[in-house]
């Protein structure tokens, strides 16, 4: 089963509104990454947050990490129609030399113009 689970599964908002997506995971992690995937395309890396960080910003993106609750949130402010995509969190387990990151099933965001 997937380690990461995004919530909600689908989100529909108006342009200009903020969008918040959540990710929960099960085991201790080294870092957590958020990716965006437009329909029929590969994934695009958005932001990486390490286990010793609590918050990170990149442009209109804000990511928080709560390791005690094993959860992360991605906030997109002032959303645009171009933000319409699926958003995935991926976790890297702590203390592993293997390559296995684990992705959730994603949140599908629709931003209406």
């Amino acid at each position, binding site marked *: 089963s997937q380690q990461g689970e995004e919530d909600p599964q689908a989100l529909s908002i108006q342009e200009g509104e903020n969008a918040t997506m959540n990710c929960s995971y099960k085991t201790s992690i080294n870092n957590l990454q958020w990716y965006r995937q437009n329909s029929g395309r590969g994934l695009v*890396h958005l932001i990486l947050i390490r286990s010793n960080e609590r918050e990170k910003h990149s442009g209109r993106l804000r990511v928080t990490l709560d390791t005690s609750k094993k959860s992360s949130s991605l906030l997109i402010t002032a959303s645009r129609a171009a933000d319409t995509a699926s958003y995935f969190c991926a976790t890297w387990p702590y203390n592993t030399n293997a390559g296995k990151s684990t992705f959730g099933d994603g949140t599908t965001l629709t931003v209406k113009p």
Partner: protein
Amino acid sequence: GAGVSQSPRYKVAKRGQDVALRCDPISGHVSLFWYQQALGQGPEFLTYFQNEAQLDKSGLPSDRFFAERPEGSVSTLKIQRTQQEDSAVYLCASSLEAATTDTQYFGPGTRLTVL
């Protein structure tokens, strides 16, 4: 510079056929990953290379799946005797560092349909 490229972009195979999917990572990237993505789901890890060494193949679903990266650059994912459940998008990603926690750059994927 050029990103990760994959070929073919689309592949239709009859059940029982063998297929080979190619990945050209970003030049100089040490790490290469293969993922399988079913419709409506997130990518699932298949295998990981560090240069030419396959360090983790724990995600390969069966012995019909085989991956190689003989010269530490281009990689091929081969699926023998394809089954309908193999239908999915196969994504390749590369990262600059050997560490498995580096940012991954993804290719556009190969959509495999097994009839």
